[in-house]
C-alpha cells in the first residue's frame, strides 16, 4: 500500500522551533556558550548543523560567541547565537560592532529574571530595554518576540530575512515559558518559505564602494574571499570603509544607519489585533503574557466588557502606528508585562493623551495569569 504523505506534525518546544526556523532560513553557523534557559538551541544545533555541512562551535564565552558569528557572516554564511540575560550583557560589545559594520546575524535571547544571575529557570521579560539600548552609542535595532511555538519558528525565519535585507543584527527576544513549552506545529515545505539573501555587489571589484548609500539605505555586501577586498572596522568609517573623523562623513553615515531601518518601518511591524475593532479597553502584550491576555479578553467579553488585545511581535522599532490604531476606539490601555514596565513606557510615550495607560508589572518569577489581567481590567474599567 502506498503511504499517504501527511504534512509532518511535530510536538516542539519553543527553543526547538527556533532551531527549525533557523535551519530553514539557511543558518549554517552557530557559536554559543551554555546558558539556561537557552541551552537546548545549542545542543540541537550541535547535532544538526554538521549533518548539513554547517558548523557548530562552543566558544569560551558569549563575547567570543557573537564575535565568531560576525566573522562567519562576513565570510558569507548565515549565522546565529543564542543566550540569556547574563550572556546577552556580554554580547553588547560585539552587538554594537555588528550594527556599525552592518553584518547580518541573529541573536536569540531567552529572557530570565535579573539583574545579574537572577532567576535562571524562571520566566521574565526584563531585557526589553537592554535589547533596545544595551550597546553603547546611537543605533537602531530590530527585536522580534513570540508567544507561541509556531511564532518562534516564524520569527526566527523573519529575523534572518530582516538581518540579510537590512544588513543588521536582529534579536529574537523570547521568555522562558515560550522557550520551554511544547505545542503541536507543522513544518512548512522548504519551497514555501520566503527566504531573503543579502544583496551582493554586481559591479567589478574596482568599482565597489562597500558602504555606499543607496535608495534603500542598505549597501551591497561582498563576502570575504570573493574578490572584493575591503576594510571592515568598528571605527566610524567613510563609504569606502576607512576610518574617518570628518563631520561631513560621520553625519551621513550614522543617519543612514538609522534611516535604513526607519524607512522600512511598516515592513518591520508585525503584530496581531485581537477583537480590537470595538474595544473600549485594549491590552498591549507580548510573549507568554499575550497568551494570558487573550484569555482575559474572552473572559471580559463574557462579562460584557469590550476588551481587545494588541499583541506585539515586533518589539523594536516600537509599533507606534499599531497603538495609534487601537486608540481610535480605546480610551483605556492595559499593559501587563513581566518587568517593571519597560514597554508601558513606550505605550505612554506614543499615547497623545487621549487614553489612560495602566500597567500590570510582575517581577516575582511567575507568569501573569488571565485572572490577574482580568482583575486589573475590572479595576480600571
Amino acid at each position: 500500500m502506498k503511504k499517504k504523505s501527511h504534512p509532518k506534525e511535530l510536538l516542539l518546544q519553543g527553543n526547538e522551533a527556533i532551531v527549525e526556523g533557523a535551519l530553514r532560513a539557511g543558518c549554517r553557523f552557530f557559536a554559543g556558550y551554555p546558558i539556561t534557559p537557552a541551552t537546548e538551541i545549542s545542543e540541537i544545533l550541535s547535532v544538526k548543523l554538521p549533518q548539513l555541512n554547517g558548523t557548530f562551535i562552543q566558544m569560551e564565552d558569549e563575547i567570543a560567541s557573537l564575535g565568531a558569528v560576525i566573522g562567519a557572516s562576513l565570510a558569507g554564511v548565515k549565522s546565529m547565537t543564542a543566550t540569556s540575560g547574563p550572556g546577552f550583557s556580554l554580547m553588547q560589545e560585539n552587538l554594537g560592532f555588528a550594527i556599525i559594520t552592518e553584518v547580518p546575524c541573529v541573536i536569540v535571547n531567552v529572557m530570565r529574571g535579573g539583574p545579574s544571575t537572577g532567576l535562571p529557570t524562571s520566566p521574565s521579560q526584563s531585557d526589553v530595554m537592554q535589547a533596545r539600548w544595551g550597546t553603547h552609542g546611537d543605533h537602531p535595532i530590530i527585536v522580534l518576540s513570540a508567544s507561541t511555538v509556531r511564532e518562534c519558528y516564524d520569527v526566527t525565519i523573519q529575523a534572518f530575512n530582516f538581518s540579510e535585507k537590512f544588513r543588521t543584527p536582529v534579536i529574537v527576544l523570547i521568555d522562558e515559558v515560550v522557550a520551554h513549552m511544547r505545542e503541536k506545529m507543522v513544518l512548512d515545505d522548504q519551497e514555501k518559505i520566503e527566504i531573503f539573501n543579502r544583496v551582493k555587489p554586481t559591479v567589478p571589484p574596482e568599482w565597489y564602494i562597500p558602504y555606499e548609500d543607496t535608495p534603500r539605505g542598505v549597501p551591497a555586501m561582498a563576502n570575504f574571499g570573493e574578490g572584493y577586498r575591503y576594510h571592515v572596522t568598528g571605527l566610524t568609517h567613510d563609504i569606502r570603509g576607512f576610518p574617518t573623523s570628518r563631520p561631513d562623513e560621520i553625519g551621513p553615515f550614522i543617519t543612514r544607519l538609522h534611516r535604513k531601518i526607519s524607512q522600512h518601518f511598516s515592513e518591520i511591524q508585525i503584530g496581531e489585533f485581537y477583537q480590537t475593532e470595538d474595544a473600549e479597553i485594549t491590552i498591549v502584550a507580548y510573549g507568554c503574557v499575550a497568551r494570558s491576555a487573550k484569555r482575559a479578553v474572552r473572559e471580559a467579553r463574557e462579562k460584557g466588557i469590550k476588551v481587545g488585545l494588541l499583541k506585539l511581535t515586533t518589539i523594536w522599532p516600537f509599533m507606534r502606528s499599531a497603538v495609534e490604531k487601537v486608540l481610535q476606539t480605546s480610551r483605556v490601555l492595559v499593559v501587563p508585562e513581566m518587568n517593571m514596565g519597560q514597554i508601558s513606557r513606550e505605550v505612554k510615550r506614543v499615547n497623545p493623551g487621549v487614553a489612560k495607560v495602566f500597567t500590570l508589572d510582575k517581577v516575582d518569577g511567575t507568569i501573569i495569569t488571565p485572572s490577574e489581567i482580568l482583575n486589573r481590567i475590572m479595576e480600571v474599567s
Partner: protein
Amino acid sequence: MAEITKLIHKYLRHDKKFPHVWCPGCGIGIMLGALIRAIDRIGYEKDEIVLVSGIGCSGRLPVYVDFNTLHTTHGRALVFATGVKLAKPSLRVIVIMGDGDAVAIGGNHFIHAARRNIDLTAIILNNSVYGMTGGQHSPTTPYGMRSTTTVYSNIEQDFKISELAVTAGAVFVGRGTVYHAKLLDSLMEKAILKKGFSVVEVIAHCHTQYGRQNRLGSAVEMMEWQRDHTVPVEKAAAMKPEELQDKVLIGVLVDKELPVYQDEYEKIRERAKAGAGK
C-alpha cells in the same frame, strides 16, 4: 623597479588616506614589512588572505594593506578570525594583536584559540605598554617599570607571551624582535605555513611612551637593547643559566603536530551525516 617598490605597489592600498597613524621610529612598520614579504614569498593571492586585528596601535595595521581586512573590537580579533576560518576554511586568516589586546582583555580568547588548535596565525606586537591611549602599563610591562598608571613603579609580574602560548597548546611559537628583521621574515613565513594555531611574538619598542617614561632613549637605542638582550634558542642551549638571566630567547620555540580543528570537524560532519541516515 626595486623589490620594495614592487611590494608597496602590490600590497599597500592606493585609495587609503596616508600618512599612517604610527609614530616615526615605530617598530610596527618593520613587522608589517616582514608580514608582507612572507606572504609574497609564499605566493598567496590577496583575495584569500583575511587580516584581522583588535584595537590599539597594532590594530590599525590592516587598513593599509590590500587584503580582506577586519578591524574588530579590543581583544576579540581571534574570535572573529575563528568565525571567518570555520565558515570558509579556504581563507588564510592572519591575526594582528598588541600585548594588551592579546593577553589582557583578550587573554581568555588567546589561550582558548591555542587550545582548540584552529588554523590561524596570531602575530603579537609586544611593546610592553598601551601606546595609543598614552602609555599605561600592560600585562607585559616588567616589574619595577614606570607607566602613566604606575608612576610609583609597576608592582605586577609580566606575562611571557610566547611561554603562555606554548603552555596553552599552540603548535608553532616563534619569537623575534623588530631589530632582527630577517629572523622575523622567516618566523612569519613558517607560522603562516603551519597548519594549526601558530604564534609569532614580535618584541618591539615604544620609545614614545614606554621609552620616554623609563628613560630608555631613542628608537635606535631601544632596538640596540633588543640586540643585546636576546639570544637565539640554538645558541642558548649551550649557555649557562646565569648567562641567560636577563636574556630573552628568540627563534622557533615550539613546532609540533596536533590535530587541527577544521580537519577534526570535517570528521564530525561525516559522523553526523552517517548517523542521520540511520
